[in-house]
């Protein structure tokens, strides 16, 4: 398929006795904004880590730009990773570097000249409303600002495909709406593809082109926002309406 950037086929992953991914097949298509949803602990982060090579699946195959990367060594992944970006939950900013140094980091690693780096960093910080924060340390920033700096660091190197792991979890509704708006803007501005993990249904409906719902290690729904709103799939209904009862049995 031409417009599929990343494909995971029949991915299985277990940790000891616990089987977390039970045969997931997922496509991420060029220029789309795919939302991956599911209850906490259903394996969303594990799936992403497998797709990006931070973990290796027990079974299944992964293709990036039609090339099989399932058994790539870490070194081989290093050749692919410059095209990928990932925003980690909590940001994963380097705490001993300033905001500027954090955002400049991927560009420095690529060997770009300092003046070019300065320009790009200032530009993206401005776009994300972070002007003036260049010399602050991550622990001096609020949660929302830290997320935005992490977003800046992820996007400054212009990746082809960017994963956002719960970008708005734990933020207030207004900041969430602002970040959603930002994500849509950045998607257009950078012409990049996004795969967003979230369990915020409202947020997902605002930004998604396509939504995939994960539960119990399997995909239980894959379709557009409209299809999801109209679906009478019991998993979808329970999740969208936020009901404690239903086919999704969560142990609390």
């Amino acid at each position: 398929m031409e417009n599929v950037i990343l494909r995971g086929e029949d991915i299985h992953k277990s940790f000891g006795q616990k089987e977390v991914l039970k045969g997931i097949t997922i496509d991420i298509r060029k220029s789309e904004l795919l939302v991956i949803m599911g209850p906490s602990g259903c394996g969303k982060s594990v799936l992403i880590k497998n797709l990006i090579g931070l973990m290796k699946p027990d079974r299944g195959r992964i293709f990036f730009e039609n090339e099989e990367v399932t058994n790539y060594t870490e070194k081989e992944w290093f050749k692919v990773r410059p095209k990928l970006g990932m925003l980690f939950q909590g940001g994963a900013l380097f705490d001993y570097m300033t905001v500027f140094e954090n955002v400049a980091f991927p560009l420095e690693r690529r060997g770009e000249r300092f003046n070019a780096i300065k320009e790009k960093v200032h530009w993206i910080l401005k776009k994300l409303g972070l002007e003036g924060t260049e010399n602050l340390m991550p622990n001096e920033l609020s949660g929302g600002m830290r997320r935005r700096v992490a977003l800046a660091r992820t996007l400054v190197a212009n990746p082809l495909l960017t994963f956002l792991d719960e970008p708005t979890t734990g933020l207030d509704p207004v900041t969430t709406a602002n970040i959603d708006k930002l994500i849509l803007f950045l998607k257009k501005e950078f012409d990049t593809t996004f795969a967003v993990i979230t369990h915020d249904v409202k947020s997902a409906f605002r930004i998604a082109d396509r939504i995939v719902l994960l539960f119990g290690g399997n995909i239980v729904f894959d379709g557009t926002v409209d299809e999801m709103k109209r679906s009478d799939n019991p998993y979808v209904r329970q999740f969208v309406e936020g009901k404690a009862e239903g086919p999704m049995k969560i142990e609390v």
Partner: protein
Amino acid sequence: MIILDNMISAIGRTTRIFLKVMWDFFTLRWEYKEFWRNLIRVGVESWLVVLITGTFAGMVLVVQTGHEFQKVGASGYIGGVVALALARELAPVLTAMVIAGRIGSAFTAEIGSMKITEQVDALRVMAVDPESYLAVPRTLALMFMLPILTFYSFTAGLIGGAFVAVKSLGLELVTYTESIKRLLMQKDIILSLVKGAVFGILIGVVSSYNGLETEGGAMGVGKRTTVSVVAAIISILVANYLLTLFSLVFY
């Protein structure tokens, strides 16, 4: 069986980090910014504690040997014996122990905290090898600083010892320094510096390995830090024995 398996994989990964350090060192891939940062930090954070350690080591040596030697009329040997003991064993080993506790634990805690907050994964996603970026510059910084700190500790020990010899034992300073000149040889200094470098590498590799293997939140960091210091100390003692044997055989 699981314990043996874990031990073997621990030794394996630690060896891999060590080989990476050596390779990056000889091919000049030093991550200069990180190397300098850690070099300066090691010096700044440990100069005082190493000074105190060395001084008191020298002082206690003089106290212990002083009275015994004076009893048998061998006060002409005090300075030299203290210098030999400091150079060959006490300065390198004590300094390394202090650095393992001070700096080794800090390295493990730092790298471990980075691991549990996904900063290490973030490095991998940005195509940066965490071992080359985190372990190598720290280990190289220790490899350079520890010989310097060892020599500094040795000097402090000699001076502290001189002070006790003159004030407490009533020894002539000249007697003390002359006996050092007579007994201390160049190879003793070289041995202490070599030991320093080796211990530095050990502390760097062990502390980085433990940092990178950290799991399980803040408690995991705490656990790994303890393991790291203990493992470093044991490695230092074993390496010290082997290096001493080696030096006696070859000289």
